[in-house]
C-alpha cells in the first residue's frame, strides 16, 4: 500500500555474473538500462522519465575499486561515492574528488550511488565530472566487441546522453595525478547540504616554485555537459598566480560557460559565480600544490574560508 500513484511500467531485472555477460545482455536487449546504486534510475522510473523492459543490475560487479599505480589513479565504475569520500588515498592525492564526493546527496545516497552512475546518467550538475576532468581522465568502456578507452570529456554528449555505443558500459576511469598536483572542488548551492550544484568548479594546479606549470579548471551545472575551461595554459603556465592571472582565469571560465536560468539561479548570476568559484578553487588548489593549505582540511563547500583565504579580492597565493 505504499502510495506510488506514478507507477513504473512492468519490467524485469537481470543480474549478470560479470562485465562480459552484462555487455552481452545489453547488446542483445536494446533499451535495457544498467542499474548500479539506482539513485538516478529509480527516480527516473518513478517520475515516468524512464520506461524500460530490462534493468541490468551491475552493482555487484567487480570493477577494481580504487587503485593508484604511479601517476595513474583508477577508480572502478561500481565504486560507491561513499568509498571515494572516505578514501585515505584520495584525500592525500586528489582531494578534489573527495570534496566532490562528500557533497553529493546524503550518506544514504552516497552509500548507494556509484561513480559510473554519476558519470553515465550525464546530469549537467553531476559532482564527479569536474574534478575528474581537471585530472585529464580517461574512461575505459567495455562493449560487445571488446574494450576501448576514450577521453572522459567525450563521455557525456548532452543532458542525459552519452557516447556509449549500444551494449557498451563504463568499467573504470583513470585520472592522471602526478606528485605535487593540487586540486579542489567547490560549488554554489541553495542549502548547505543535500543539494544540487547551481555551479560546481574544480581546479588542478601544478607548480615549480612560484611558477605555474599546469592549470586546469572544470565546470559543472553551467553548461549542457561538464566542461574544461579552454585556454588557461596560455595565461597561466610560466607565470606566477598573481591577481591578474586569477582574474583572467576567472573571466575565461565565465565566458566559456553557458548556464540556463532555473530554480538554482539565473544565467547571469551563474556566470558571475563561476568566476568567483574559479578564482577560489585555483587559490585553494595552488595552496595545496605549494603545501600551504592545512593538511586534512577540506575546503568549505563554497570555498569561502576567511580564516585560510582572507580578503575579498583574489590576492596572490601565499
Amino acid at each position, binding site marked *: *500500500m505504499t502510495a506510488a*500513484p506514478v507507477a513504473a511500467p512492468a519490467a524485469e531485472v537481470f543480474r549478470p555474473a560479470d562485465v562480459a555477460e552484462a555487455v552481452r545482455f545489453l547488446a542483445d536487449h536494446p533499451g535495457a538500462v544498467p542499474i548500479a546504486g539506482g539513485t538516478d534510475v529509480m527516480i527516473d522510473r518513478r517520475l515516468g522519465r524512464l520506461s524500460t523492459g530490462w534493468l541490468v543490475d551491475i552493482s555487484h560487479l567487480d570493477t577494481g575499486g580504487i587503485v593508484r599505480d604511479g601517476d595513474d589513479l583508477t577508480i572502478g565504475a561500481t565504486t560507491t561515492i561513499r568509498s571515494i569520500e572516505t578514501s585515505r588515498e584520495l584525500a592525500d592525492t586528489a582531494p578534489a574528488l573527495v570534496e566532490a564526493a562528500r557533497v553529493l546527496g546524503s550518506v544514504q545516497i552516497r552509500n548507494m550511488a556509484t561513480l559510473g552512475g554519476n558519470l553515465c546518467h550525464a546530469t549537467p550538475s553531476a559532482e564527479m565530472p569536474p574534478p575528474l576532468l581537471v585530472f585529464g581522465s580517461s574512461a575505459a568502456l567495455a562493449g560487445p566487441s571488446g574494450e576501448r578507452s576514450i577521453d572522459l570529456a567525450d563521455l557525456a554528449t548532452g543532458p542525459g546522453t552519452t557516447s556509449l555505443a549500444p551494449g557498451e558500459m563504463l568499467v573504470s576511469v583513470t585520472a592522471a595525478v602526478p606528485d605535487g598536483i593540487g586540486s579542489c572542488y567547490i560549488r*554554489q548551492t*541553495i542549502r548547505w547540504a543535500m543539494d544540487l550544484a547551481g555551479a560546481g568548479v574544480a581546479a588542478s594546479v601544478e607548480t615549480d616554485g612560484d611558477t605555474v606549470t599546469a592549470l586546469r579548471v572544470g565546470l559543472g551545472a553551467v553548461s549542457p555537459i561538464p566542461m574544461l575551461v579552454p585556454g588557461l595554459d596560455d595565461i597561466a603556465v610560466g607565470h606566477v598566480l598573481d591577481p591578474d592571472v586569477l582574474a583572467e582565469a576567472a573571466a575565461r571560465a565565465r565566458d566559456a560557460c553557458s548556464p540556463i536560468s532555473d530554480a538554482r539561479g539565473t544565467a547571469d548570476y551563474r556566470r558571475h*559565480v563561476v568566476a*568567483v568559484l574559479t578564482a577560489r578553487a585555483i587559490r585553494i588548489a595552488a595552496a595545496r600544490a605549494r603545501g600551504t593549505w592545512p593538511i586534512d582540511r577540506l575546503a568549505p563547500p563554497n570555498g569561502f574560508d576567511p580564516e585560510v583565504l582572507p580578503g575579498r579580492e583574489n590576492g596572490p597565493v601565499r
Partner: protein
Amino acid sequence: MAVTQATSDAHSVVGKRIPKLDAPDKVTGATVYADDMRIPGLLTAAIKRSPHAHARIVSIDVSKAEALPGVHAVIHAGNVTQRSFGYGHDNEPLKSRKVRCIGDEVAAVAAVDAEIAQQALDLIDVDYDLLPEVDDPHAAMLPGAPVIHEELDIEGNVSMRWDFETGDLAAAERDSAVIVEGTYSSPQAAPAPIETHVVIADFDPTGHLTVISPVHMVFMYRKELADCLGLDWQRITIKQPPVGGSFGGKIDIDTHDFITVLLAKAAQRPVKLALTREEEFIGARTRQPIHFKLRTGADADGNITFRDAEVVSDNGAYNAWGSHAMLVAMNTVTSLYQVPASRVRSAVVYTNKNYGGSVRGFGNPQATFAVEQQTEELADALGIDPIAFRLQNANTADSTTTQGLEITTCGLTECLEAVRDRSGWVERRGTQREKFRGLGAATYIHVGGGARIYGSDGCGAMIKIDDSGQVALISGSSELGQGSETVLAMIVAEEIGVPVDVVTVTNSDTDVKPWDVGVHASRTTFVAGNAARLAARGAKAKLLEAAAETLGIAAAELDIEDGMILRNGDRDTAVPYAKAIRRRLLREQSSIIMSSAFYDPPTEKQDEGFIGNISAAYGFGAHVAEVEVDPETGMIRVVGLWAAHDVGRAINPMSCEGQIEGGAVMGIGLALTEELPVQDGRFLAPNLHDYGMPTAADPPRIDVTLVETIDPEGPYGAKGIGEGGIILPPAAIANAVADAIGIRPREYPMRPWKVVDWIQRNETSTVVDQRTGEASA
C-alpha cells in the same frame, strides 16, 4: 542551552520536562499513520489535475478509463453531486467549467492498485481552451487583466479589501523626525510536512460515512463535507489518525477530501488517496505571498509615531481560510510596539496560482519582515541602538492597542533583554563587517489565548475515572505531533493530584470527542488546556465527594496529593484515590466519576472596523540572528539564533523548546531557501531536492529562553507558543544581513543570486530625515 526564567511555584507535574506520551511508539515504528492502516477491500485513488493555469474545460471523456479492468469509479464534475465550497463559495472539488491554477482537479479515479489508477488517469481525455493567465496580484488588479472568477461580483480580481485607520496620520507624519519607507515581499512557500496528505473514506452498507483524515478542524470539516456533498452530517464520523506533521497544511478541508468521499460513494468501496510529494506541493495549500509598501515614522526622542501600510496578498485561485492571513498582518502593523497612528489598506487578490492556506504563522512572518526591518532602519537613522529603541516602544502589560487587543501579560521587554544579553548584541552588533558577519533582531505579537474568528472559540473536555484509578481525558482537541496530548495530561494530573502516567488522552474521533473549533492559532494549550483543567476540577470534586462519603469525612477537609487522599494534609491516614472510587462504584446504587467542561475564552470578534479583543492573551517573543554572508556568491549561513519567547508558563519546557526550535528552523527556511517558483507554466521545485527545506546541516543550534509571565487566564498561566518560532527569522536574518554587509533585503527567500543583485545595485534603506529634509541611504 535553554534557560527558563521560571517562577518557582510548587507544582508536582506542571513545569517538568516530561517526554511525550506517544514517543515510545514513535521511536519503535509502532505508530500507525493513515498510510500504515490495512483495510480490506481498499481502493487506491488518483486525481487528474490541470496542467494549465487558466483554461476553459471544453470536454472530459472518461469512457476509456471507465472501461479499464480494475477501475471502480471515475468521477468528474459532470457525474457527481457537489456544491461550491470555500470562503465565499468560490471553489468546487471537481472543476466544472474552468481551471484557475495548475493542479486544479478535473477528474479522479479509484482502482484496485496505484498502477491501474495511473493508467486510468492517462486514459482520461480533457479538452481545454486556454485562457490568458495572470500570476502577479498587482497585474491582476489592472484594467483589462484576465478575469479569474466571472461568476463573482468583484472588480480587478480583488476578492476582499480590508482597511483600517486610527489616529491623526498627517499630524504624526509632521511630528516625525525620520520616516523610513520601502517595499517588502515574500514568496509562495509550503508547509511541507514529511507525511503527505492521506485520506481514507468508507460508506458502510447503511450509508454511514467514516473518513480517516489528518485534518485538525474535525467538526467544521464534517459540516463542510456534508454541506458541499449533500450528505447527512449526523451520519458522518471523522477519525483522526496520528498526523505526520501539518504546520497548517492539513488544517482545513481541501479538494482532495471531498474527492476521496465522492470516489468512495461512487465505488461503494473504501478508498484511500495519498498525495505524492509532487502533488503535496502543487495540489495542496501554500503560504500566500504578501507584498507590503510600508512607511514608519519616529520622533527625535525615539518614539514610533505612525505606520502606514499598503498590503497586497497574492491569494491564488480560490479563497481558502488562508485569505484571512491578512488580518494577522494587520494586527502586526497596528499593534507591534506602541503605535499611536496607523493605517492599513489591504487587498486580497486572485491570481492563477496555487492558493494560500492557513500555514503556521498565518501572515505574521510576512508582516514582521516588513515592520521589523523598518524598526531597525529607523533606530539606525536616529542613532539609537535598535534593541534600546524597541525597549522604549515595547508593548506593556495591562494596555490596549488601537485595534482593541487587550494585552494582559507581556514579556516583550524580558524577551528583548534575554536575546540581547545572550547574543552579545551590545558588544558585537555593527563590529563584524570585515568578517562579513552581522547581528539582527526582530520581535512579534501574536495571539496566544485563542483567536475568535468564528462565533465560538471553544473546546470541550470530558474526564472519567474508572475502578483502576485510570484517568481518561477525552479532549475535543487534536495531537499533531506538537505534544498537546502530553500537555493536557500534565494539566489534568496536576489539577487532580495524580501522577501523569495514570492519565490517558483520547482525541481522535468525532463520535467520541466533544466539540472543538480545532487546532489553529496557537490555541490548544490555552483553550483545550483550560477545558481539560475545568473538567479535571469537576472530576476531582466528585472524587472527593465519593471519598468523603465512604470515609465519613467532610469533603472540605480532603485533598489529593500524588494519588493519595489526605485529610487535612495528614499522610499517615492517607487513602489511595482509586480505593475511594472502588468503594463508591462497587455497591448498589453506585455512580461513576465523570465530568465534562467547555471552555470558550472571554474574547470578542472584531467589529466591522477591525476592532476587537480577539484573543484572551497575546504572545510575544524576540530573536537575534547572526549571519555570515559570502559577499561574492551571496550564500548566507545563519551561525547563531537566540530566541526568547513569552510562553506565559511553560507547562512542559521541553515541548515549548521543541515548538520554538522547530518554528525557528522553519523560519530560517523561509528566510533563506524555501520557495515554490513557477516558470513558463511549470513548477520548478515541486520536490524535496529543489524546494529548499532546511537539513540538519543548515541551521545553527537554536538558543531558547522561555520567559514566564503567568497569564491570569491561561491554564497555570500558559499562553500559546505553536507559531511564535516561525515568525521572526525572516526579519531578524534580513536585519543581520544589513548589519553584515550594509544592504537591505527587500524580499525573501534571500537566495544567493538575489543577494548578489542587491550588493551590485547597492540596495539600502530609504530614510527621510525631516529635520534636515535629506533622504539618505
